[in-house]
């Protein structure tokens, strides 16, 4: 691991590695060729090295997924890139009705090795159709697996895990994370120790304060991790409220069993996400926590999400809509009382 490596560089290296070690891995998407290497440079260097397996396409998200499905059907392991995660709605049919259903609708299990990469989230001023977090729209589709990029997980492991899963995967990548530094060891936010719990290749990152019993548990996917750390740090330093943060790699299917014991111990839990309210990933996690931890909960599961609004372009307006470390800190403080 390079010192001070950015998350995007780590992901780029993971793609290099998986294409190097698997001759049946294809990369397909818009503007993915060198020297551009994708709108966020995540595919940089790939077409120079693997010219015959890096396919740049017309602006046709539905066909990108269709071609990827055809490659998967004939035994390959395609990785499809959506330039912006918002555009995945144009490929919804191919993902839901073909990629996912082909695994089991023909009476036997047919492996479909397919990864769809989706840069998501706001905080870049791209406006309502280039800033969304569409994870919720893909929840609860049989055989469709959802994952999220994090600053703690090694993407080489996560990507290899998705490529080999045999079921279609969507990888949601908070685009702000690309330029942030990966965690390099040592305390996170000068305060939290990091360890992994659960099984490879998709373990859950656990951030905790040594020798302190947490009063709150925060469940945050990768895109929210830094904001959760910032909020929890302030809460501890200003108000002596200790939080434990769990950052899962796998969003769906989600196994809340790993959280059952810590949530039961703290009695208070907050699930945070970037999507607007209504039928969201957070609600799914909350439902599981109610089922597993009902007797131990001392307060309702607190959901923190963006406002029920489109995501405005202007920086100050966008800030009001999206989850910030400040708004999260306020919610956590309320929950602790």
């Amino acid at each position, binding site marked *: 691991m390079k010192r001070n490596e950015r998350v995007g560089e780590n992901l780029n290296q993971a793609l290099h590695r998986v294409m190097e070690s698997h001759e049946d891995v294809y990369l397909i998407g818009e503007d993915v060729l060198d020297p551009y290497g994708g709108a966020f440079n995540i595919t940089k260097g790939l077409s120079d090295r693997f010219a015959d397996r890096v396919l740049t396409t017309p602006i046709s998200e539905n*066909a990108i997924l*269709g071609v990827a499905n*055809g490659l998967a059907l*004939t035994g390959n392991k395609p990785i499809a890139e959506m330039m912006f995660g918002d555009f995945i709605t144009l490929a919804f049919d191919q993902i839901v*009705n073909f990629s996912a259903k082909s695994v089991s609708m023909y*009476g*036997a299990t047919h492996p479909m090795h397919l990864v769809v990469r989706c840069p998501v989230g706001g905080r870049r001023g791209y406006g309502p159709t280039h800033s969304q977090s569409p994870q919720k729209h893909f929840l609860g589709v049989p055989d469709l697996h959802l994952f999220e990029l994090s600053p703690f997980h090694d993407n080489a492991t996560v990507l290899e895990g998705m490529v080999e899963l045999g079921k279609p995967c969507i990888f949601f990548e908070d685009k702000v994370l690309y330029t942030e530094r990966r965690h390099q060891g040592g305390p996170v936010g000068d305060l939290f120790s990091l360890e992994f719990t659960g099984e490879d290749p998709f373990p859950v990152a656990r951030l905790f304060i040594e020798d302190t019993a947490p009063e709150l548990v925060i469940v945050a996917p990768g895109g929210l991790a830094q904001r959760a750390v910032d909020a929890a740090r302030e809460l501890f330093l200003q108000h002596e409220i200790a939080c434990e943060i769990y950052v899962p790699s796998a969003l769906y299917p989600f196994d809340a069993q790993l959280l059952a014991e810590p949530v039961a111990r703290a009695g208070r839990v907050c699930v945070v996400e970037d999507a607007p309210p209504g039928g969201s990933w957070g609600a799914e996690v909350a439902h599981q926590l109610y089922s597993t931890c009902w007797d131990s909960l001392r307060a309702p599961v607190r959901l923190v999400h963006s406002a029920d609004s489109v995501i405005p372009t202007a920086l100050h307006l966008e800030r009001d809509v999206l989850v910030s470390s400040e708004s999260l800190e306020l919610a956590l403080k309320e929950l602790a009382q």
Partner: protein
Amino acid sequence: MTLTEQAPSGTAPAPLRDGDLTSLLMIRHFEWKLLDLFAEGKLNGTTHTCLGQEYIPVSLNPLLSAGDFLFSNHRGHGHYLARFADPAGLLAEITGREGAVCGGVGGSQHIFRDTYLSTGIQGESLPVAAGAALHFKRAGLPHVAVVYIGDGTWGEGSVYEALNIARLWELPLLVVVENNGISQTTPGSVNMAGTIAGRARAFDVDHHRVTSNDVRHIRAELAPLIDRVRHQHMPLVVEFDTVRLGPHSKGDDTRPAREIEAARARDWYGALRAEDPERFDRLDQEQRQLIAGVAADVLARPLVAGETA
């Protein structure tokens, strides 16, 4: 470019082989039997028969290899039977009985066997077939991806995304259009501007229109064209001007009687019988009995055990 249609030769064609006539009749009796079973309340759900269109997959079958990937659609019984001659497996699938080719999960519209796959979403298979064709080309395999669509499928954007890519990347993709002039209940005149040929031309994709329903003529016409798809890796749209004799699914035929009569006048069934009534009646009777026996056998089987719950 649009390939001009070759006029059938003036000489009388050689007699249709028994195997081809048998295949045509198997499909015809299979579809008739399905409609009977529906009427008797013995079938669940829905089904789309290919009555009148049987000659299309029967014509194509020997022009395709076992390695060619066939993508079928909602009206796919003929496509399946022409390739596999497996009425029992298909009927078991449709009725959820033991021996079902896809465990009763897929039913009429969702079949996957070897390199044959059907699905019930219009136009969805076209980009998927382009992906399979890409695999064949890159792997150096002499296979073609064949996708059956209807005239109504041209309303879907996926068709155009896939045609663009197939031409751009020079993929061995054969698009077979079964243009029966009607999309469920909506006639082509109400849902298509321009023509299929014009749409193919816009993408610089070859288009060939077949007006004959004679298996022998069709094969002679298409053999060199499919060979070009296979070896020169150029996509091709073959549009069959065909007829749907039955309803879209069960009892939903809203066409005026004279239109249905006009469709029946174009049926291959009477024309082939007239060529050699004695042989035709013999094979017709054989297939009628075969399908009746298959239906009796399959419907007596236990329901398929669910494995996906």
